[in-house]
Protein backbone atom coordinates (compact mmCIF):
# COMPACT_ATOMS: atom_id res chain seq x y z
CA UNK A 1 0.00 0.00 0.00
CA UNK A 2 1.38 3.40 -0.99
CA UNK A 3 0.30 6.64 0.55
CA UNK A 4 0.77 9.37 3.13
CA UNK A 5 2.65 8.27 6.24
CA UNK A 6 2.67 11.68 7.88
CA UNK A 7 1.72 15.29 7.16
CA UNK A 8 2.36 18.76 8.54
CA UNK A 9 1.17 22.27 7.87
CA UNK A 10 2.40 25.78 8.54
CA UNK A 11 0.63 29.10 8.27
CA UNK A 12 2.34 32.35 9.33
CA UNK A 13 0.77 34.09 12.29
CA UNK A 14 0.01 37.39 10.60
CA UNK A 15 -3.40 38.11 9.03
CA UNK A 16 -4.69 41.11 7.17
CA UNK A 17 -8.40 41.74 6.68
CA UNK A 18 -9.98 42.47 3.32
CA UNK A 19 -11.13 45.81 4.77
CA UNK A 20 -7.51 46.93 5.28
CA UNK A 21 -6.50 46.15 1.71
CA UNK A 22 -9.71 47.64 0.31
CA UNK A 23 -8.95 50.85 2.20
CA UNK A 24 -5.48 50.99 0.62
CA UNK A 25 -6.89 50.24 -2.84
CA UNK A 26 -9.79 52.66 -2.43
CA UNK A 27 -12.25 49.82 -3.04
CA UNK A 28 -15.50 48.75 -1.40
CA UNK A 29 -14.71 45.92 1.02
CA UNK A 30 -18.28 44.63 1.03
CA UNK A 31 -18.25 44.12 -2.72
CA UNK A 32 -14.84 42.46 -2.65
CA UNK A 33 -15.82 40.11 0.16
CA UNK A 34 -18.94 39.07 -1.72
CA UNK A 35 -17.21 38.48 -5.01
CA UNK A 36 -14.13 36.65 -3.63
CA UNK A 37 -15.81 35.06 -0.61
CA UNK A 38 -12.81 35.73 1.58
CA UNK A 39 -12.54 37.68 4.85
CA UNK A 40 -8.81 37.75 5.55
CA UNK A 41 -5.49 36.27 4.45
CA UNK A 42 -2.23 35.18 6.04
CA UNK A 43 1.03 36.94 5.29
CA UNK A 44 4.62 36.03 6.17
CA UNK A 45 7.04 37.85 8.44
CA UNK A 46 10.07 39.55 6.86
CA UNK A 47 12.29 36.56 7.69
CA UNK A 48 9.97 33.87 6.32
CA UNK A 49 10.07 32.40 2.84
CA UNK A 50 9.19 29.17 1.05
CA UNK A 51 12.17 27.37 2.58
CA UNK A 52 11.49 28.42 6.19
CA UNK A 53 7.80 27.54 5.96
CA UNK A 54 8.55 24.19 4.32
CA UNK A 55 10.97 23.46 7.18
CA UNK A 56 8.34 24.29 9.81
CA UNK A 57 5.75 22.06 8.12
CA UNK A 58 8.39 19.40 7.41
CA UNK A 59 9.51 19.29 11.04
CA UNK A 60 5.93 18.58 12.13
CA UNK A 61 5.68 15.90 9.45
CA UNK A 62 8.88 14.10 10.40
CA UNK A 63 8.62 14.47 14.17
CA UNK A 64 5.23 12.71 14.02
CA UNK A 65 6.62 9.74 12.09
CA UNK A 66 8.73 6.78 13.15
CA UNK A 67 10.80 6.91 9.97
CA UNK A 68 14.31 8.26 10.47
CA UNK A 69 15.04 11.36 8.34
CA UNK A 70 18.13 9.59 7.03
CA UNK A 71 15.93 6.86 5.56
CA UNK A 72 14.21 9.33 3.24
CA UNK A 73 15.44 9.10 -0.35
CA UNK A 74 14.06 12.25 -1.97
CA UNK A 75 12.53 15.64 -1.39
CA UNK A 76 10.33 17.55 -3.84
CA UNK A 77 8.89 20.96 -3.07
CA UNK A 78 6.50 22.74 -5.39
CA UNK A 79 6.33 26.51 -5.22
CA UNK A 80 6.11 29.61 -7.34
CA UNK A 81 8.16 31.57 -4.81
CA UNK A 82 11.33 29.52 -4.48
CA UNK A 83 13.86 31.83 -2.78
CA UNK A 84 16.36 31.32 -5.59
CA UNK A 85 15.82 31.08 -9.35
CA UNK A 86 18.92 28.89 -9.45
CA UNK A 87 19.70 26.85 -6.33
CA UNK A 88 17.21 24.40 -4.89
CA UNK A 89 14.89 25.05 -1.98
CA UNK A 90 14.90 21.29 -1.40
CA UNK A 91 18.49 21.05 -0.15
CA UNK A 92 17.90 23.82 2.42
CA UNK A 93 14.83 22.02 3.70
CA UNK A 94 16.45 18.56 3.63
CA UNK A 95 19.41 19.88 5.62
CA UNK A 96 17.12 21.41 8.23
CA UNK A 97 15.10 18.18 8.40
CA UNK A 98 18.29 16.20 9.07
CA UNK A 99 18.00 14.04 5.96
CA UNK A 100 21.76 13.51 5.71
CA UNK A 101 23.22 13.45 2.20
CA UNK A 102 21.80 10.31 0.62
CA UNK A 103 18.77 11.83 -1.05
CA UNK A 104 17.82 13.18 -4.45
CA UNK A 105 16.09 16.48 -4.95
CA UNK A 106 14.75 18.95 -7.46
CA UNK A 107 12.38 21.87 -7.04
CA UNK A 108 9.07 21.85 -8.85
CA UNK A 109 7.12 24.70 -10.37
CA UNK A 110 3.71 24.47 -11.98
CA UNK A 111 1.99 27.61 -10.70
CA UNK A 112 -0.41 26.50 -7.94
CA UNK A 113 -0.09 22.77 -8.59
CA UNK A 114 3.66 22.28 -8.08
CA UNK A 115 2.86 20.67 -4.72
CA UNK A 116 0.48 18.02 -6.05
CA UNK A 117 2.95 17.30 -8.85
CA UNK A 118 5.54 16.69 -6.11
CA UNK A 119 3.14 14.25 -4.41
CA UNK A 120 2.68 12.41 -7.71
CA UNK A 121 6.44 12.03 -8.13
CA UNK A 122 6.64 10.82 -4.53
CA UNK A 123 3.77 8.38 -5.13
CA UNK A 124 5.52 6.70 -8.04
CA UNK A 125 8.85 6.58 -6.18
CA UNK A 126 7.12 5.11 -3.14
CA UNK A 127 5.80 2.32 -5.35
CA UNK A 128 9.48 1.50 -5.92
CA UNK A 129 9.93 1.26 -2.16
CA UNK A 130 11.35 4.68 -1.35
CA UNK A 131 10.32 7.15 1.35
CA UNK A 132 9.88 10.65 -0.08
CA UNK A 133 9.15 14.06 1.41
CA UNK A 134 6.92 16.09 -0.89
CA UNK A 135 4.81 19.16 -0.54
CA UNK A 136 4.38 22.81 -1.24
CA UNK A 137 5.09 26.23 0.21
CA UNK A 138 4.46 29.70 -1.11
CA UNK A 139 4.79 33.29 -0.09
CA UNK A 140 2.38 34.37 -2.78
CA UNK A 141 3.18 37.65 -4.43
CA UNK A 142 0.76 40.16 -5.86
CA UNK A 143 1.32 43.66 -7.16
CA UNK A 144 0.00 46.38 -4.83
CA UNK A 145 -3.36 47.44 -6.28
CA UNK A 146 -3.99 44.15 -8.10
CA UNK A 147 -7.15 42.17 -7.28
CA UNK A 148 -4.78 39.31 -6.32
CA UNK A 149 -3.69 41.39 -3.34
CA UNK A 150 -6.85 40.38 -1.47
CA UNK A 151 -6.06 36.68 -1.73
CA UNK A 152 -2.31 36.06 -2.24
CA UNK A 153 -1.26 34.44 1.04
CA UNK A 154 1.48 32.31 2.62
CA UNK A 155 1.58 28.77 3.92
CA UNK A 156 3.13 25.33 3.57
CA UNK A 157 2.00 21.71 3.60
CA UNK A 158 4.44 18.81 3.64
CA UNK A 159 3.95 15.07 3.44
CA UNK A 160 5.94 11.92 3.93
CA UNK A 161 4.97 9.40 1.25
CA UNK A 162 5.93 5.74 1.36
CA UNK A 163 4.77 2.22 2.06
CA UNK A 164 5.17 1.84 5.84
CA UNK A 165 2.32 2.60 8.25
CA UNK A 166 0.36 4.50 5.64
CA UNK A 167 -2.40 6.66 7.14
CA UNK A 168 -3.94 7.73 3.88
CA UNK A 169 -3.64 5.37 0.97
CA UNK A 170 -3.26 7.07 -2.40
CA UNK A 171 -5.42 4.69 -4.46
CA UNK A 172 -4.95 6.51 -7.73
CA UNK A 173 -3.96 9.81 -9.30
CA UNK A 174 -4.60 11.30 -12.73
CA UNK A 175 -3.84 14.61 -14.41
CA UNK A 176 -5.43 16.81 -17.02
CA UNK A 177 -3.10 19.35 -18.67
CA UNK A 178 -3.11 21.78 -21.60
CA UNK A 179 -1.31 24.89 -22.80
CA UNK A 180 -3.62 27.55 -21.38
CA UNK A 181 -1.94 30.86 -20.54
CA UNK A 182 -4.20 32.27 -17.82
CA UNK A 183 -1.63 33.37 -15.23
CA UNK A 184 2.15 33.65 -15.47
CA UNK A 185 5.28 35.39 -14.25
CA UNK A 186 8.40 35.93 -16.33
CA UNK A 187 11.90 35.68 -14.85
CA UNK A 188 13.10 38.92 -13.19
CA UNK A 189 9.50 40.07 -12.71
CA UNK A 190 8.40 40.45 -9.12
CA UNK A 191 4.67 40.00 -9.58
CA UNK A 192 2.56 37.61 -11.63
CA UNK A 193 0.24 38.72 -14.43
CA UNK A 194 -3.15 37.18 -15.16
CA UNK A 195 -5.79 37.12 -17.85
CA UNK A 196 -8.70 38.32 -15.70
CA UNK A 197 -11.91 36.39 -16.34
CA UNK A 198 -10.06 34.00 -18.67
CA UNK A 199 -8.75 32.36 -15.46
CA UNK A 200 -12.31 31.03 -14.93
CA UNK A 201 -14.12 28.77 -17.38
CA UNK A 202 -11.38 27.76 -19.88
CA UNK A 203 -8.79 27.53 -17.14
CA UNK A 204 -9.74 26.63 -13.57
CA UNK A 205 -13.13 25.06 -14.27
CA UNK A 206 -12.18 23.12 -17.38
CA UNK A 207 -9.08 21.54 -15.82
CA UNK A 208 -10.41 20.84 -12.34
CA UNK A 209 -13.60 19.29 -13.66
CA UNK A 210 -11.86 17.26 -16.32
CA UNK A 211 -9.30 15.81 -13.90
CA UNK A 212 -11.88 15.04 -11.20
CA UNK A 213 -14.24 13.40 -13.72
CA UNK A 214 -11.36 11.43 -15.24
CA UNK A 215 -10.37 10.11 -11.81
CA UNK A 216 -13.91 9.11 -10.87
CA UNK A 217 -14.57 7.49 -14.22
CA UNK A 218 -11.33 5.50 -14.05
CA UNK A 219 -12.08 4.28 -10.53
CA UNK A 220 -15.78 3.80 -10.99
CA UNK A 221 -16.75 6.27 -8.29
CA UNK A 222 -19.33 9.02 -7.95
CA UNK A 223 -19.28 12.13 -5.72
CA UNK A 224 -21.31 10.50 -2.95
CA UNK A 225 -18.60 7.83 -2.52
CA UNK A 226 -16.36 10.53 -1.00
CA UNK A 227 -16.59 11.85 2.54
CA UNK A 228 -14.46 14.87 1.69
CA UNK A 229 -13.59 16.79 -1.46
CA UNK A 230 -10.76 19.32 -1.58
CA UNK A 231 -10.22 21.61 -4.56
CA UNK A 232 -7.68 24.28 -5.35
CA UNK A 233 -9.02 27.43 -3.76
CA UNK A 234 -7.86 30.69 -5.33
CA UNK A 235 -10.86 32.38 -3.70
CA UNK A 236 -13.99 31.20 -1.92
CA UNK A 237 -16.20 31.20 -4.99
CA UNK A 238 -14.34 28.94 -7.45
CA UNK A 239 -14.09 25.77 -5.33
CA UNK A 240 -17.72 26.10 -4.18
CA UNK A 241 -18.92 26.43 -7.72
CA UNK A 242 -16.78 23.63 -9.09
CA UNK A 243 -17.94 21.33 -6.29
CA UNK A 244 -21.57 22.08 -7.11
CA UNK A 245 -21.02 21.53 -10.82
CA UNK A 246 -19.41 18.15 -10.13
CA UNK A 247 -22.17 17.14 -7.73
CA UNK A 248 -20.43 17.53 -4.38
CA UNK A 249 -22.23 19.07 -1.41
CA UNK A 250 -21.13 21.99 0.80
CA UNK A 251 -20.71 19.49 3.62
CA UNK A 252 -18.17 17.48 1.62
CA UNK A 253 -15.98 20.50 0.89
CA UNK A 254 -16.33 22.58 4.07
CA UNK A 255 -13.57 20.95 6.17
CA UNK A 256 -10.95 21.37 3.45
CA UNK A 257 -12.00 24.90 2.51
CA UNK A 258 -9.50 27.23 4.18
CA UNK A 259 -9.29 30.09 1.69
CA UNK A 260 -11.97 32.20 3.36
CA UNK A 261 -9.83 32.45 6.51
CA UNK A 262 -6.23 32.30 5.27
CA UNK A 263 -6.38 33.33 1.62
CA UNK A 264 -4.89 31.60 -1.39
CA UNK A 265 -1.62 29.95 -0.40
CA UNK A 266 -0.95 29.10 -4.07
CA UNK A 267 0.87 25.74 -4.34
CA UNK A 268 -0.04 24.95 -0.75
CA UNK A 269 -3.71 25.84 -1.08
CA UNK A 270 -5.28 22.46 -1.91
CA UNK A 271 -2.64 20.58 0.14
CA UNK A 272 -3.32 22.62 3.28
CA UNK A 273 -6.98 21.72 2.72
CA UNK A 274 -5.92 18.05 2.60
CA UNK A 275 -3.92 18.49 5.86
CA UNK A 276 -6.97 19.97 7.59
CA UNK A 277 -9.01 16.93 6.49
CA UNK A 278 -6.30 14.42 7.54
CA UNK A 279 -6.31 16.05 10.99
CA UNK A 280 -9.92 14.92 11.51
CA UNK A 281 -10.63 12.06 9.09
CA UNK A 282 -11.60 8.59 10.32
CA UNK A 283 -10.51 5.16 9.10
CA UNK A 284 -12.44 4.08 6.01
CA UNK A 285 -13.25 7.62 4.88
CA UNK A 286 -12.46 8.62 1.33
CA UNK A 287 -11.11 11.92 -0.01
CA UNK A 288 -11.09 13.39 -3.50
CA UNK A 289 -8.35 15.99 -3.94
CA UNK A 290 -7.99 18.08 -7.10
CA UNK A 291 -5.47 20.83 -7.54
CA UNK A 292 -5.14 23.45 -10.23
CA UNK A 293 -2.06 25.11 -11.65
CA UNK A 294 -2.21 27.88 -14.20
CA UNK A 295 -0.70 27.28 -17.54
CA UNK A 296 -2.49 24.82 -16.99
CA UNK A 297 -3.25 21.53 -15.31
CA UNK A 298 -5.05 19.68 -12.56
CA UNK A 299 -3.95 16.63 -10.57
CA UNK A 300 -6.68 14.58 -9.00
CA UNK A 301 -6.22 12.01 -6.21
CA UNK A 302 -8.37 9.24 -4.76
CA UNK A 303 -7.37 8.84 -1.11
CA UNK A 304 -8.56 6.26 1.45
CA UNK A 305 -7.97 6.72 5.19
CA UNK A 306 -6.55 3.69 7.06
CA UNK A 307 -6.58 2.57 10.72
CA UNK A 308 -3.12 4.11 11.18
CA UNK A 309 -4.66 7.59 11.10
CA UNK A 310 -5.85 7.27 14.70
CA UNK A 311 -2.34 7.02 16.15
CA UNK A 312 -0.98 9.56 13.67
CA UNK A 313 -3.51 12.22 14.65
CA UNK A 314 -2.46 12.11 18.31
CA UNK A 315 -0.54 15.15 19.61
CA UNK A 316 0.03 16.53 16.13
CA UNK A 317 -0.05 20.31 15.69
CA UNK A 318 -3.13 20.76 13.51
CA UNK A 319 -3.86 23.02 10.59
CA UNK A 320 -6.79 24.40 12.55
CA UNK A 321 -4.45 25.51 15.37
CA UNK A 322 -2.40 27.49 12.85
CA UNK A 323 -5.57 29.08 11.47
CA UNK A 324 -6.67 30.12 14.95
CA UNK A 325 -3.28 31.41 16.13
CA UNK A 326 -3.27 34.80 14.47
CA UNK A 327 -2.22 38.42 14.90
CA UNK A 328 -3.73 41.13 12.73
CA UNK A 329 -1.52 43.57 10.89
CA UNK A 330 -2.47 46.78 9.14
CA UNK A 331 -1.58 47.54 5.52
CA UNK A 332 1.70 49.25 6.43
CA UNK A 333 2.89 46.28 8.46
CA UNK A 334 1.85 44.02 5.58
CA UNK A 335 3.85 46.12 3.09
CA UNK A 336 6.93 46.17 5.35
CA UNK A 337 6.93 42.44 6.03
CA UNK A 338 5.24 40.58 3.23
CA UNK A 339 5.75 42.53 0.04
CA UNK A 340 9.16 41.73 -1.37
Amino acid at each position, binding site marked *: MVGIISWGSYIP*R*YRIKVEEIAKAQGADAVVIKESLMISEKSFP*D*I*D*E*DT*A*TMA*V*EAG*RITLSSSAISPEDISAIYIGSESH*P*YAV*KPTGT*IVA*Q*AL*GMGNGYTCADLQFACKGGTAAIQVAYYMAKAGLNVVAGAADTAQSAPGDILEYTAAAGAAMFLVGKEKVCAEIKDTVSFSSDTPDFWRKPQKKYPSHAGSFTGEPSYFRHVMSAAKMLMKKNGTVPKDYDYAVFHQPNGKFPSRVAKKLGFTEKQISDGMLVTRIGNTYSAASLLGLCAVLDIAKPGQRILLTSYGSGAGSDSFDILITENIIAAQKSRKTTQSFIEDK*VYGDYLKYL*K*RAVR
Partner: protein
Amino acid sequence: MAIPRIWRQIEEKYNLVGTLCKDCKKKHFPPREVCSCGCYDLEKYRFLGKGEIVTYTVIRISSEDNEDTPFRNIPYVLAIVRLDEGPSLTAQIVQCSESELMIGKKVEMVFRKLLEKGEKGVIQYGYKFRIA
Protein backbone atom coordinates in the same frame (compact mmCIF):
# COMPACT_ATOMS: atom_id res chain seq x y z
CA MET B 1 29.85 37.23 5.77
CA ALA B 2 31.77 35.08 3.33
CA ILE B 3 30.09 32.05 1.75
CA PRO B 4 32.32 29.35 3.35
CA ARG B 5 31.67 30.96 6.71
CA ILE B 6 27.91 30.64 6.25
CA TRP B 7 28.27 27.13 4.83
CA ARG B 8 30.31 25.63 7.64
CA GLN B 9 27.80 26.82 10.23
CA ILE B 10 24.79 25.24 8.57
CA GLU B 11 24.46 22.32 11.01
CA GLU B 12 24.84 24.59 14.02
CA LYS B 13 22.47 27.28 12.79
CA TYR B 14 19.80 25.05 11.20
CA ASN B 15 19.56 22.35 13.82
CA LEU B 16 21.25 23.59 17.01
CA VAL B 17 24.01 21.02 16.70
CA GLY B 18 26.53 21.46 19.51
CA THR B 19 28.80 19.04 21.33
CA LEU B 20 28.59 16.58 24.19
CA CYS B 21 31.62 15.78 26.34
CA LYS B 22 32.06 12.01 26.43
CA ASP B 23 33.85 12.34 29.74
CA CYS B 24 31.77 14.65 31.97
CA LYS B 25 28.61 14.57 29.78
CA LYS B 26 28.42 18.35 29.67
CA LYS B 27 26.60 19.69 26.61
CA HIS B 28 27.87 22.75 24.75
CA PHE B 29 26.28 25.12 22.34
CA PRO B 30 27.87 26.34 20.10
CA PRO B 31 30.07 23.28 19.50
CA ARG B 32 33.43 23.36 21.26
CA GLU B 33 36.80 21.78 20.60
CA VAL B 34 37.60 21.22 24.27
CA CYS B 35 35.31 20.83 27.28
CA SER B 36 35.69 22.95 30.44
CA CYS B 37 36.68 19.69 32.19
CA GLY B 38 39.72 19.48 29.92
CA CYS B 39 38.44 16.63 27.77
CA TYR B 40 38.97 16.76 23.99
CA ASP B 41 36.77 13.75 23.28
CA LEU B 42 33.54 15.46 22.21
CA GLU B 43 30.74 14.22 19.98
CA LYS B 44 28.02 16.06 18.07
CA TYR B 45 24.84 16.69 20.01
CA ARG B 46 21.58 18.01 18.61
CA PHE B 47 19.56 20.18 20.98
CA LEU B 48 15.77 19.93 20.96
CA GLY B 49 15.23 23.66 20.63
CA LYS B 50 13.11 24.22 23.71
CA GLY B 51 14.04 26.59 26.49
CA GLU B 52 13.15 29.67 28.49
CA ILE B 53 13.92 33.38 28.45
CA VAL B 54 16.70 34.35 30.90
CA THR B 55 16.60 38.04 29.98
CA TYR B 56 15.53 40.11 26.99
CA THR B 57 15.43 43.53 25.41
CA VAL B 58 13.59 45.30 22.63
CA ILE B 59 16.16 46.74 20.22
CA ARG B 60 15.01 50.06 18.82
CA ILE B 61 18.23 51.26 17.17
CA SER B 62 20.38 48.79 15.31
CA SER B 63 23.54 48.84 13.28
CA GLU B 64 23.53 50.20 9.78
CA ASP B 65 25.07 47.84 7.35
CA ASN B 66 25.95 48.15 3.71
CA GLU B 67 27.08 44.56 3.23
CA ASP B 68 24.83 42.06 5.02
CA THR B 69 21.12 42.81 5.10
CA PRO B 70 19.49 41.25 8.13
CA PHE B 71 15.91 40.01 7.89
CA ARG B 72 14.40 41.91 10.79
CA ASN B 73 12.42 45.07 11.36
CA ILE B 74 13.08 47.59 14.09
CA PRO B 75 11.97 47.14 16.81
CA TYR B 76 12.89 43.51 17.35
CA VAL B 77 13.16 41.37 20.44
CA LEU B 78 16.50 39.91 21.47
CA ALA B 79 16.81 37.43 24.31
CA ILE B 80 19.14 35.09 26.08
CA VAL B 81 17.49 31.67 26.02
CA ARG B 82 18.49 28.85 28.33
CA LEU B 83 17.98 25.55 26.50
CA ASP B 84 16.35 22.72 28.45
CA GLU B 85 19.58 20.71 28.07
CA GLY B 86 21.68 23.37 29.83
CA PRO B 87 23.53 25.84 27.64
CA SER B 88 22.26 29.31 26.82
CA LEU B 89 22.27 31.24 23.57
CA THR B 90 21.37 34.66 22.22
CA ALA B 91 18.56 34.80 19.69
CA GLN B 92 15.79 36.89 18.27
CA ILE B 93 12.27 36.15 19.53
CA VAL B 94 9.92 36.47 16.57
CA GLN B 95 6.27 37.40 16.33
CA CYS B 96 5.55 38.16 19.91
CA SER B 97 3.85 41.17 21.38
CA GLU B 98 5.76 43.00 24.09
CA SER B 99 3.08 42.01 26.61
CA GLU B 100 3.89 38.31 26.03
CA LEU B 101 7.53 38.84 27.00
CA MET B 102 8.61 37.77 30.44
CA ILE B 103 11.70 36.42 32.15
CA GLY B 104 11.09 32.68 32.51
CA LYS B 105 8.75 32.45 29.50
CA LYS B 106 8.98 29.15 27.58
CA VAL B 107 10.17 29.45 23.99
CA GLU B 108 10.84 27.11 21.08
CA MET B 109 13.13 27.21 18.07
CA VAL B 110 11.89 28.27 14.63
CA PHE B 111 13.68 28.24 11.29
CA ARG B 112 14.03 31.70 9.75
CA LYS B 113 16.11 33.80 7.39
CA LEU B 114 18.95 35.53 9.22
CA LEU B 115 20.57 37.72 6.56
CA GLU B 116 21.47 38.02 2.94
CA LYS B 117 24.55 39.43 1.31
CA GLY B 118 22.79 42.15 -0.62
CA GLU B 119 20.13 41.58 -3.25
CA LYS B 120 22.36 39.27 -5.30
CA GLY B 121 23.85 37.41 -2.37
CA VAL B 122 23.08 34.10 -0.71
CA ILE B 123 20.61 33.84 2.12
CA GLN B 124 21.75 32.66 5.53
CA TYR B 125 19.09 30.68 7.39
CA GLY B 126 19.12 29.72 11.04
CA TYR B 127 17.46 29.55 14.41
CA LYS B 128 15.27 32.12 16.02
CA PHE B 129 12.73 31.48 18.77
CA ARG B 130 9.04 32.04 19.37
CA ILE B 131 6.91 31.93 22.48
CA ALA B 132 6.00 28.26 23.00
